[in-house]
C-alpha cells in the first residue's frame, strides 16, 4: 500500500528540520559554549582547558560598566517606546476600521526597510550640519532678528550647533527610531481586541479619559504591553549597528564589545563568554516575564 516515496516521506518530514537545527544551530552554540571555557594559545590556537577565566574577566569594572550601560540604555529605550506606543495605539483605538488598518500599516511600513539604511538616514538628520541643527539655527536667527526688531540688544550671540551625533543621546534616538514598531504592533493588537463596551461603561459611570486609560485600558491591555516590552527590550539589548554608527567612543553596548573580541582584539574565548552571557540575560528576561504570567 505504501508508495516508495511514502516510506521516506515521514522520516524526511520529521528528520530534516531537526537535523538542520542540530547541525546549524545547536552545534554552533555548543562550540561557542566550549570556546568560552577555552584559552588562547598563540595567535590562532584555542585550547579547551575548562577555565573560568573568561567569565571572571567579565566581572572586571570595564566590562561591567558596558553591561550596565547596555541595560540602562535598553531600559530607557523600552520606556520611551512604551509611552509613545501606548499613546499611538490609543489614537488608533477609536478610529474606523479602514482608517485604523491604513494608519497602522503606515506606522509599520518603515519596519520593512533595512535597519542599516534607517540608521544611516538618521546620521544625516542628527549630525552637526544636519537637519536638527538646520532648523534650530533658523529658529535661533529669527528669534535674534525679532530681538533686533524690537531694539533689544541681541544677547544670544552666535549659534552653536548641538553635537548630537556620536553621543549616547544619538544612540537612544536611533534605538527608539528603529524599534518603535516592535512596541506599537503588540500594544495595538491588545487594544484592538479589547471590548469597547468596557470603555463606554467607564465613561457612563463618570470616568474621564485619563481615568479610563489608567484603570480600564491599561489593565486590560497588560499582556500585550508585556509582549511589547519583551520583544523590544531583548533586541535593543543586543543591538550592534546603532551604537556602532551613531555612538561615540564611549557608547559601546554589549554587542559592540563582542564584535571587538572577534574582529579587533582577537580574544575569541572572551567574546564567546560574552555572547553566552547576553543569551542568558535574554533568557532571564523571558523567564521572569513568563513567571508573572503563570501567577495571574
Amino acid at each position, binding site marked *: *500500500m505504501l*508508495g516508495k*516515496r*511514502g516510506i521516506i*516521506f515521514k522520516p524526511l*518530514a*520529521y528528520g530534516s*528540520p531537526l537535523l*538542520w*537545527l542540530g547541525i*546549524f*544551530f545547536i552545534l*554552533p*552554540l555548543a*562550540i561557542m559554549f566550549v570556546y568560552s571555557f577555552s584559552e588562547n594559545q598563540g595567535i590562532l590556537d584555542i585550547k579547551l582547558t575548562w577555565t573560568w577565566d573568561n567569565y571572571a574577566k567579565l566581572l572586571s569594572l570595564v566590562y561591567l560598566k558596558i553591561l550596565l550601560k547596555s541595560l540602562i540604555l535598553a531600559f530607557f529605550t523600552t520606556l520611551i517606546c512604551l509611552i*509613545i506606543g501606548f*499613546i*499611538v495605539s*490609543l*489614537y*488608533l*483605538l*477609536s478610529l474606523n476600521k479602514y482608517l485604523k488598518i491604513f*494608519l497602522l500599516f503606515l*506606522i509599520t511600513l*518603515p519596519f*520593512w*526597510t*533595512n*535597519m*542599516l*539604511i534607517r540608521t*544611516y*538616514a*538618521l*546620521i*544625516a*538628520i542628527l549630525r552637526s*550640519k*544636519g*537637519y536638527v541643527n538646520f532648523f534650530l539655527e533658523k529658529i535661533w536667527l529669527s528669534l535674534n532678528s525679532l530681538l533686533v526688531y524690537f531694539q533689544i540688544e541681541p544677547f544670544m550671540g552666535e549659534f552653536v550647533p548641538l553635537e548630537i551625533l556620536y553621543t549616547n543621546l544619538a544612540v537612544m534616538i536611533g534605538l527608539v*527610531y528603529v524599534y*518603535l514598531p516592535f512596541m506599537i504592533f503588540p500594544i495595538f493588537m491588545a487594544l484592538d481586541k479589547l471590548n469597547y463596551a468596557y*470603555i463606554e461603561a467607564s465613561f457612563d459611570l463618570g470616568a474621564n*479619559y485619563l481615568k479610563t486609560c489608567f484603570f480600564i485600558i491599561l489593565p486590560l491591555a497588560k499582556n500585550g504591553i508585556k509582549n511589547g516590552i519583551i520583544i523590544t527590550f*531583548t*533586541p535593543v*539589548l*543586543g543591538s550592534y*549597528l546603532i551604537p556602532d*554608527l551613531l555612538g561615540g567612543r564611549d557608547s559601546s553596548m554589549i*554587542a559592540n564589545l*563582542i*564584535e571587538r573580541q*572577534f574582529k579587533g582584539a582577537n580574544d575569541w574565548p572572551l567574546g*564567546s563568554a560574552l*555572547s553566552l552571557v*547576553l*543569551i542568558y540575560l535574554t*533568557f532571564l528576561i523571558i523567564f521572569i516575564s513568563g513567571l508573572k504570567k503563570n501567577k495571574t
Partner: protein
Amino acid sequence: MINFSRLFLTKITFLLTLIFLYFPIVILVLFSFNDSKRNIVWKGFTLKYYFKLINNQDLIEAFLNSIVIAFMSTALSVILAVLCGYSLWKLAKKKMALSSAYEGVLALPIVIPEICLAIGFLVFYQEISWPQGLVWPLNLMSIIIAHVTFSFPFATMIIRSKLNTFNLEIEQGAIDLGATAYQVFKNFILPHLNPAIFTAIFLSITLSLDDFIITFFTSTPGVVTLPVKIYSMVRFSITPEVNAASSIFIFLTLCTAFLGLISYQVYKKNGRPKS
C-alpha cells in the same frame, strides 16, 4: 461620543511619530536626486548618482549576491518550514509535551540576539574549517546556511498556524480510502497551505535581504552583499551615492513586501478552497 483620536495629546503624538519615522527616510531618498555633494541644501534634480552606481562594479556584484542569497535561502527555508510545520502539527496531535518542547527549541533562533547567532556561526565555520575561496555561487553557501537558520523558524510559525485551519475529516477520509501520508500531504495539505507558503516566501526574502549582522560575520573573505557594501560606504564617507544605493534598496524591499501582501490577498480571494 468617546473618541481617543480627538484628544490633543494622542493627535499630536501620532503626528510627531509619523514625522519622526518618515522624515529621515524621505530626506534620504530625496537627496539621492540632489545635484550637490553637500547633502543639506537642494541644488536641483539629477540622476547622476544612479548612473554612477550602475558603473560601480563592486556594487553590482554585491547586489547580485544579495539577490542570489535571498532566493536560495528562501527556497531552503520554506521547504524546511513546510516539513517542520507538518511534523509539529502531527506531533501536537499525538504527544503534546514533545511538540511544545520542539516549538520551544524552534523559537530559540528567533529569541537569541542576532549578534550571538552570528558569533555562533563564526566559531562554527572556523572550527569545521569551512572552505574559503570557492567559485562564485558556492562561496555564498556559508551565508545562505546562516540565513536559513534564522528565517525558517519564522516561516514555520506561519505554516504551523495555517495548519490549524485544516479540516481533519479530509485527512481521515483520504486515509480510509487508502491514501498514504505522502499522498495526503501532496494532494490535500500542500494545496491548503498555499497562501501561507506565499507569505512565508516573501517574509523569508525580506528577512534575508535585510540582514546585515549575520552576513557580516559569516561571509568568507571577498564576499560582499548589498547591506555589507552600504555599511562600508557609510563608514567611509557620507555621499549622495550612498543615498542612491540605499534608495534602490528601500525600493527593492518595499516591492517584495507589497508583492507578498498583494499575492496573499489575491490568493485569499480566488484560491480559497470551497467549503
